[in-house]
Structure formats: C-alpha cells, structure tokens
C-alpha cells in the first residue's frame, strides 16, 4: 500500500483574505445552532452553552440519509436493532460484502477542515472578543481542541494570552546581544509590529551589517528579513505556532505572509491541520492511496466494536473512489478481517526478502522457455512462440482449469512420508510460500486489471462511435471491470483466510471450493474483457452481464463463507 503524501497542500491561495469568509453551502451540512446567537446575547449564557458542547470541533451537524437505521449510543442496542429490524436491500449487500452496513462518514480535505475551523473561530469570536487572527492562534496552539481551550480560557485568560504569545509579558525580555553596537535608543523606542527598511542595520542573528528590510513584533526584537525568512521556512512543516526568535510573542499568519512575501501561512495551517488529523486518528483517517488528499471522518465509532466481533469491517470509499478499511487502513480485504490482514501483511513483510522472486512480472514459458510478460489480469496464458496454453499461477496446462473446477487455488499437502521437525518447518514455509505466491499473483493481476480498466473509457467511446451505441448502454463494460476488480480483490484476500484456517475442517474445504468457483468466474470475466473488437464486444453483451453477475454472486458467497470461518474460530491468524 502506498504512503500518504505529506507534501502537497490543497489550500486555496486566498484563504487568508477570507477570514471573514462566508461559509459555503456544501450541501452536506447544516450550520450549528449556536450560529443563531447574536452579540446581544448574555455572554455568560453563551459561554456555558459553548463549553457544554462536544469536544473537538463539532461544528456542523451532519444530516445523514440513513434515517431507517440509526445507531443508538449503546453498542449492544445498535446490534440488536440490526438483528430485529428488517434488513434493507442495501444493508444486505453491505453485509454480504463483510462491510459494516450504513456506515456514516464524510469525506474532507485539509482545506475543508480548516474552513470548519475558521467557521468555529467565527462562532467563538463573541466570547473572546478579540481579532479572529488571535483566536486562530489560540486554536492552533490548542491543536484545534476547542473544549480544552475554553476550559483554560475561563480559568486563566491573562496568563494564556501571554503563554501563547498573543500578548507580551510585562517583564522586559532579556536581550543577550552578541555585539554592543546596537543603538540603545532603538530598543527603548516603542516598537511597532511589521516590516521596516533600515540602513546599516546590524542583525544579531547573522551579525551582518547591511541596508535591509527588517521585521519586529511589539517586543522590539528586530532581525533582518533574510534571517526571519530562513527561520520561518524551517518551521512551516511543524504546524506549531511560530514565535519571535527571542521571546514567546507569536507571529500571526498575516506577519508570516508579509515576511515571506507570499502565502506561506497556508503551508503552516495545512501542517497544523495534518497534525490535528494525526492526533485524532480514531475519528479521522487519511485515504491511504498515493497522492490522495481525502480524509475520512467517522463521527461515531462506538458501534464498530460490536461489528468487529462479528468480523465485519468498516470499509469506506473516498471521493476519488478509493475503497479501504477505516479500521486498519488497508484496501477492502473481505473475506479477511483486520486481524487476518495485519497478521498476513506482517508475515509477508518478514518473508518478502526471501520471496521477492514471486514479484516478477515475467515468466518463462514452461514449454519453450521464451520470456512471457503478462499484459492483462487474466491468468490464462498462451505462449506467443509455441502456442502452449498454461496457467500463470501454477504453470500447469490450462486445459483442466477451463473445465469444471479450478484446482490450482488449492495447496496440495503431500502427506506421504513421516516428517522430522525441520521438514515440518520447511513444509509450513512451503505452504506459506504457496499461499503468498498466489496472493501476490492476484495482486499483480488486480493491478493489470486496473490498467485494463483505464482503457475501458476509450473502448466505450469506440462503441459509441463505431456501433452507434449510447453512453448509457455502453456502461455494462465499465460495470464489468468494476466487478472484476472487486472479485479479484476478494479472491486475493481469501488466500490469507485459507492459510490461517484449519485445513482439516469441512468448512475450510467448502471455503476452498468457493475460492475455486470465484477464481473460475473471475478468470472467465477477465478473459471476456480482453476482447478488443467493438462488434465482438456488442455481440457478447449478454455474456458480460451474465459473467459479472456470476462473479458478484460467487464473491458474496465466498465472503460469507469466510466470515463464517472467522466467527466459528476455524480461521485463527497467528504470527
């Protein structure tokens, strides 16, 4: 799985001018009831009502459409109600996918969260009765945890303002100077915040004397603009409040931007929001896909424990269409649950050094040893040189695969002779290697299928142009590739389940049979999708429907069976 890209920012360039911005109607949220307060309201009343709100930034109440299925606060009840209420069609689909039904979440970006924070600042403004920029500093300092900020605020307002660097401490800050030749008069002058131009300025940071722009806060600690830029640049990534180099007086976003000459404070704010997301990772998760900027926000995690017990996983989908598990951050991994997934991944990581031979995309034809590269997800290979047809996974003849059962999903134990302990160990290793290899092959196939999917758009267009078929009518192709992807992913994650299952149990045998059926279904569909000629595609339209419908059915059956193995304790992951 790819790492989260931490570099990019999605903030618009104008947000700093927009502190007084008007909340956009995003359609997903209603403004909070506190927004109805007016300035004339009793301050005390307002304060208590705000303090009593939920923690963090419960800015908006989101109205979810799943009114037919509400979680109770009590986990147990939620579960009970799930069992007693008639299961809707969509629920049933989610359940058979091994997913938590009706999971309520929203997709955000750092930008959205920051805008929520700004809205929050607007709400808080009457309480603090100070500039929004200053409230923003307070919020940033408190990691956007409004409740804690308000608590401390009511207790020790004055101290807090000094501590965070909004106000100057009364005591004159000690000033250690490298050089004695700084004009004493300048220090005793009442300093104004901002940039000035000085001739022969002697900066105590770089000790250079030059004609330069300088910057200083009200504290009078004045440094040349170059040193200040260097200093700020180094700190933008931390997301923490940036202070004067010599005292705790804080730089506001507006100061940062005027020093840097461009909109650098947005970088700081993005870093700060990122650290907020990191600190609240129970409710906020980054989409784990490379370069994806989506953040999934799950408000109510209370019901998840119960679903975990039943081996359902909280699968979510971000705005870019990436599906992943909110709990473990991996791609959708049904029929495996999070435990099986993490055990498997840990093991794979440990063994990968020894196993990287399986990662290769090329193989020699088992007959004529010509190098063959796989260009689609389909595992039915035909050597372009000697025309031998074989299975990519087991390298055996394809003929038996095409008929009835696709047996190469099954690891065959040869239980002939008695085994010594070391042989036993190597047998376990062999078994693992087998499962790992198949898992890996399906992963590679899934990637190739995905590539194939990228070309689907042009195929659909070709249909439209050459066959005079409407866009809607051409969608069966897009749907087929989507189902192929899902089926392949499920098949892939079924191997860890099979690996950790008690092979002697009947249910495991049923599971393996189900694997074979799905495997066959997936390969058939994959093969169908290799067709390039538009006319041929249209001729097979019904086949596409049938085959993808079949994949879907087999997939649900396999997922249910896998969950059964987990619930009954037949599949137990171990390191």
């Amino acid at each position, binding site marked *: 799985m790819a790492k989260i890209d931490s570099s990019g920012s999605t903030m618009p360039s104008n947000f700093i001018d927009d502190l007084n911005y008007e909340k956009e109607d995003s359609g997903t949220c209603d403004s909070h009831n506190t927004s109805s307060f007016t300035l004339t309201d009793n301050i005390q009343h307002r304060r208590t009502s705000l303090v009593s709100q939920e923690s963090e930034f419960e800015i908006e109440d989101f109205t979810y459409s799943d009114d037919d299925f509400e979680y109770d606060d009590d986990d147990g009840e939620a579960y009970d109600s799930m069992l007693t209420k008639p299961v809707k069609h969509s629920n049933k689909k989610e359940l058979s996918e091994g997913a938590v039904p009706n999971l309520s979440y929203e997709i955000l970006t750092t930008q959205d969260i920051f805008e929520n924070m700004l809205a929050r600042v607007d709400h808080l403004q009457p309480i603090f009765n100070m500039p929004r920029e200053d409230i923003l500093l307070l919020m940033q300092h408190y990691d956007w945890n409004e409740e804690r900020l308000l608590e401390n605020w009511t207790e020790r307002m004055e101290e807090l303002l000094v501590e965070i660097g909004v106000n100057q401490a009364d005591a004159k800050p000690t000033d*250690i100077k*490298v*050089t004695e030749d700084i004009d004493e008069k300048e220090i005793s002058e009442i300093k104004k915040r901002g940039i000035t131009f000085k001739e022969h300025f002697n900066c*105590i*940071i*770089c*000790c*250079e004397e030059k004609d330069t722009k300088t910057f200083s806060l009200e504290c009078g*600690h004045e440094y040349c603009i170059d*040193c200040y830029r*260097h*200093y700020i640049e*180094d700190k933008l990534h931390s997301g923490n409040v940036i202070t004067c*180099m*010599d005292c705790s007086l804080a730089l506001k976003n507006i100061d940062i931007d005027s020093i840097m000459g461009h909109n650098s404070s947005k970088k700081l704010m993005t870093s700060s929001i990122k650290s907020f997301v990191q600190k609240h990772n129970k409710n906020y998760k980054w989409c784990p896909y490379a370069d994806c900027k989506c953040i999934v926000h799950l408000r109510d995690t209370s019901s998840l424990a119960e679903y975990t017990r039943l081996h359902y996983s909280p699968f979510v989908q971000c705005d870019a269409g990436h599906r992943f598990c909110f709990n473990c951050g991996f791609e959708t991994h049904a029929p495996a649950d999070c435990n099986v997934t993490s055990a498997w991944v840990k093991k794979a990581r440990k063994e990968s050094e020894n196993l990287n031979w399986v990662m290769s995309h090329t193989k020699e034809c088992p007959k004529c040893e010509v190098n063959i590269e796989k260009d689609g997800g389909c595992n039915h290979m035909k050597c372009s040189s000697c025309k031998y047809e074989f299975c990519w996974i087991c390298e055996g003849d394809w003929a038996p695969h095409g008929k009835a059962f696709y047996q190469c999903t099954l690891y065959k134990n040869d239980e002939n002779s008695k085994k010594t302990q070391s042989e036993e160990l190597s047998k376990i290793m062999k078994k693992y290697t087998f499962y790992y290899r198949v898992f890996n092959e399906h992963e590679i196939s899934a990637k190739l299928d995905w590539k194939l999917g990228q070309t689907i758009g042009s195929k659909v267009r070709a249909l439209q142009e050459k066959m005079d078929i409407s866009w809607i009518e051409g969608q069966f192709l897009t749907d087929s590739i989507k189902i192929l992807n899902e089926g392949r992913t499920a098949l892939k994650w079924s191997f860890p389940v099979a690996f950790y299952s008690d092979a002697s149990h009947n249910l495991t045998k049923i599971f393996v049979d189900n694997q074979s059926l799905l495997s066959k279904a997936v390969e058939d569909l994959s093969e169908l999708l290799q067709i390039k000629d538009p006319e041929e595609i249209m001729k097979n339209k019904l086949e596409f429907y049938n085959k993808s419908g079949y994949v879907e059915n087999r997939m649900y059956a396999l997922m249910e069976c896998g969950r059964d193995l987990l619930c009954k304790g037949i599949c137990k992951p171990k390191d």
Partner: protein
Amino acid sequence: MASLPKRIIKETERLVTDPVPGITAEPHDDNLRYFKVTIEGPAGSPYENGLFNLELYLPDDYPMEAPKVRFLTKIYHPNIDRLGRICLDILKTNWSPALQIRTVLLSVQALLASPNPNDPLANDVAEDWIKNEQGAKAKAKEWTALYAKK
C-alpha cells in the same frame, strides 16, 4: 572550506575576549566550527572541583539549527548518557537562533547544578537518582574525582 559566517566569527571573538567564568571554548585550527570546550563543575554540586571536557560543533545551518554538544569526560548524571549525549531542551525543540554558544554552555553548566531525573536520557542513572538521591550524588562525586581531575 567555505568562508565562515560573520556570526560565528563574532561569537568566537567574544568567547575569547569576554570569557564566561568557569567555561572555556576554543575552536580547532583545522575546523573553525568545531570547539574544544571545558566546563568547571558548579560549586555545591557533586561535580564541584571537576573539570569536564566537551566538544561542540556548529552545523551548516547554524544559527537556524542548534549546535551539537557532547561530554568527552565520563560523568554520572541523569540527563547525560554513557556516550556523553546531553538531554537539554534548547539543544533540540526549544532551540532559537537568538541563543548562542555561550548561552548553550551556560545551560549545560546549569544542568550540572540541577539535574532533572524526571526527564532522563540515562535511564539507569535517573532511576538511581530518584530512588536513592544521596547514593547517586555520592557516586557522581566519586566519578568526578576519578575522571574529571583538574
């Protein structure tokens, strides 16, 4: 070597012309960013009468980045580990470019006067310090006499 920043030249000059009592710092001839440092153990501490050798290096990004400092003399102290590494906030997160070599060395001297076993770098020493302060101080004194002779 690239030319030495004016800031480092000034600081070095001042360390020589206006030395801090109980502290010496002198750059190596072949590397002007690399200093030989000695600190006298503060009076009233278990390190009294000891003379501790340290080394200090100003990295490329100094003063935006903190100096690197390490004890060369063995010392029994909860915030200094066996390799002489020092756990001091201003050398890490609380560094500010307005601080200088002399302020850093003064802070190290102050750390000798008041060890902080609750924020330890050398865990075993800190444990000893919390459990048996008298014993730990005696050991620190013993080590001072043994390794930090003037």
